[in-house]
């Protein structure tokens, strides 16, 4: 028994070391980015790199002064929430159907949009949406971004649905439940953590995607990510402002992830159903 206890402690020690190591490697560049956002632009590229410096808010001030940051953020939010919602709405039932019937082609079809380079869609979509006068509308942006979120939702949820034993569904069918009822009442609660993961991923992908917004938005509906590009240009590369913009842009997904943590960890596991 002593061996087991020792081994246990060893393992926990090892895990902690790995955790710290991984954390340092993963977060160091992000920390650098956030710190740089509080440095004046020229100090971001100073050499040797400075860890100690007097922080300044000038980048954030400049950012909010020169770009309609809040309005861009709102646009991004509308488009991202819309496309994530659409992705979940269409994706959850589709993933369920694919998982149950083991007929995969619908999932592969939705992934097709992610197989082609994004630039393939630029001209045709511009032509399409221009014909119906929807350039610059939130709808066009939401629809185009949903083409990205849908496959993510489906493919992230597939293994979660696959992991539910068939017996659960068969039991429900014997009880005379319709398929949609089974999905809504039984399957979805079981894959809650999968839904949370797919929602976060869909949100992040849509939030950071600039290519479609480049041609489908106009001045009023421009998304936040376009603002990030504005700080890199001949005669105007403002590292500090870029880092500040980056920090602000990365905040909403991070906040969302932190909020959804609960479901990531404590989703009902199958253990509860093994009865």
């Amino acid at each position: 028994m002593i061996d087991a206890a020792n081994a246990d402690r060893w393992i926990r020690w090892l895990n902690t070391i790995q955790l710290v190591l991984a954390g340092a490697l993963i977060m160091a560049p992000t920390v650098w980015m956030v710190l740089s956002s509080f440095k004046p632009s020229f100090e971001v590229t100073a050499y040797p790199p400075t860890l100690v410096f007097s922080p300044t808010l000038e980048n954030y001030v400049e950012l909010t002064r020169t770009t309609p940051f809040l309005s861009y953020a709102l646009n991004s939010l509308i488009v991202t929430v819309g496309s994530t919602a659409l992705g979940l709405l269409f994706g959850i039932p589709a993933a369920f159907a694919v998982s149950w019937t083991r007929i995969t082609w619908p999932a592969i079809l939705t992934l097709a949009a992610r197989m082609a380079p994004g630039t393939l869609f630029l001209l045709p979509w511009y032509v399409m949406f221009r014909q119906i006068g929807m350039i610059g509308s939130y709808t066009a942006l939401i629809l185009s971004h949903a083409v990205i979120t849908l496959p993510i939702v489906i493919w992230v949820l597939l293994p979660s649905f696959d992991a539910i034993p068939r017996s659960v569904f068969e039991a429900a069918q014997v009880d005379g439940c319709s398929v949609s009822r089974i999905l809504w009442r039984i399957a979805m609660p079981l894959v809650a953590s999968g839904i949370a993961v797919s929602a976060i991923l869909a949100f992040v992908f849509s939030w950071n995607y600039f290519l479609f917004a480049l041609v489908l938005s106009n001045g009023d509906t421009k998304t936040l990510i376009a603002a990030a590009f504005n700080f890199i240009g001949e005669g105007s590369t403002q590292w500090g402002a870029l880092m500040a913009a980056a920090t602000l842009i990365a905040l909403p997904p991070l906040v969302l992830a932190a909020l959804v943590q609960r479901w990531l960890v404590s989703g009902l596991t199958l253990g509860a159903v093994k009865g």
Partner: protein
Amino acid sequence: MSDTAAPLTQDRQKLEMAALSAPGVLFTVAMIAFPVVYTIWLGFQTFSSTGKQSFAGLANYSKLISDVEFWHGLWITIALFVLSLVLQLVFGVWLALVLFHARRLPGIVRSLFISPFMMPPVVAGMMWLVILDPSLGAANYILQSFGLPPSDWLASPTWVIPTVALIDSWQWTPYVALIVLGGLQSLPPSVYEAAQIDGASPLKTFQRITLPLLLPTIVTAAILRSVDLLRFFDIIYITTQGGPGNASNTLNIYGFRVGFEFFNIGYASALMLTLTAVVFGAVLAFNRLRGAVAW
């Protein structure tokens, strides 16, 4: 259940299933049908410098086959893909395990662990451009502090692809970890209990039990990463623009330049469709694998 009732329920079930996938399928088709057909059509045209367009049959495709740049681009794309995928899958699973056993970690810290992929690619590119600058960046500074030789990183024709793979892996390993973590959490604990009773070591448990059960999730992560890795664009666009020389000229970058900078839309369409076919092939292959490792 009588015999007459069973087939009715089955057909009814099939219909209901179809109704569940229909919205997603119809939506996708509605959105991508025109672009795909249009691009295929464009691939059969040539455009003169004055924009005059003429039917060219398979000319663009035969040009593609004899284009050294294309084959080089394909090689670069595949090399980058394999290198990145292996790194991300291996370290993704490792990170997922580490996070799984650190369940008492506060949510905020956990979300910081998965934060890199939340960063917009343009920002990640600019950031690493500075960090990896041979003269101005922290990377060489750190290397030299430890007495190690500095590297040209992104400016070296030999090391640019491994460096890009490292940058991408820094960003996307947490993404893989997140997906695998979801899979870990849905594993039935009963299996672990059985293993513990049998006195199996952690390594053995992982090897014999956890890993096989995780394979479907890992393959899913591989599929999701593959579609993005094979179309690698953002980081390279921001940092090296395909250089030095053509050392990081992936097919997507090449196709983009041909279309948007050299205005050869016909050839660019052919390139993009070929790339799509490559990705499609990879997805089909992985999907086979997914079926093979299902429980």
